[in-house]
């Protein structure tokens, strides 16, 4: 479509090549950035998963060690989040 509107010259190919090379370099760079971003996102998800797993394990640990009265306290919190979980929430805020 562009070629139809442009005048025809013998060096058209070189001009097209220069602009295509530039476009290709930018696109390759953007693709690399996208791959890197995907990796970072996966890492964030992994980290989030690890944090949640660790938190759950610690919560279970503390639940088994603590007094029955604490169990009652935990039972009052939906999702089994006790005081430790609150502390971790603060740590996450910092992140």
């Amino acid at each position: 479509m562009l070629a139809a509107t442009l005048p025809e010259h013998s060096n058209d190919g070189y001009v097209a090549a220069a602009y295509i090379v530039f476009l290709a370099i930018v696109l390759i760079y953007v693709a690399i950035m996208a791959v890197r971003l995907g990796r970072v996102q996966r890492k964030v998800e992994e980290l989030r998963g690890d944090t949640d797993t660790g938190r759950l394990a610690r919560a279970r640990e503390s639940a088994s060690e603590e007094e029955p009265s604490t169990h009652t306290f935990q039972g009052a919190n939906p999702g089994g989040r006790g005081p430790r979980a609150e502390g971790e929430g603060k740590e996450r805020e910092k992140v």
Partner: protein
Amino acid sequence: MRSPSLRALSISTVAAFCVALSLVFFYAPIEAEEGFLQKIFYLHVPLAIVTLAGFVIGGLMAIAHLRTRDARWDLRSYVAIHMSLIFGAAALVTGSIWARASWGHWWVWNEPTLVSFLIVFLLYATYQPLRFAIEDPERQARYASVFAITAGAFVPLNFIAVRLSASYVHPRVLGGSSNLPAPMMLTFLVSLAAMALLFATLYSYELAAKRTRILLKARSRILGFQ
């Protein structure tokens, strides 16, 4: 990475490129000697100017790093040089294509403009290997800054070499001898602005990505997952 300023920068870059390409192909007149081939000028020259400016900016950021010992300046300097290398590679390739079409050779070794640009490019190509050859992060940042400043001093030499050179195969773009007609000058300036915006956008994305990765690593270490 999803900040409003980055989005605004990206949109303005795309808009600037649309305007620049429209001007290049539909507004700027066809040059009398080179004909349609001269359209490469609006791509190659802004690329070269932005590359050299990026190297100088990298050097200035390195000075700020050495003065303040703030690691953020080192990161900025690194990203500016990294981006300039990519733009520099594009400038070299587009320049070679233009040279082949215009002079019949991919490269002319007795042309100071080309050779001095290549020297500056190759000099900066050693920046990353040098940087990552040093393990200690503080030493790495310090040495990289010294390198960026020293190499940055070579960039004005590129311009001076062009001005003082006797060989005039490569056309002179800026300066007193430049007599571009107004439509061509306008197109060139818009193309230069678009290229500078592209540099700023990619620089901002790269910087944001690098910062995110550094932060992620640090948090992983703090949480004991690495």
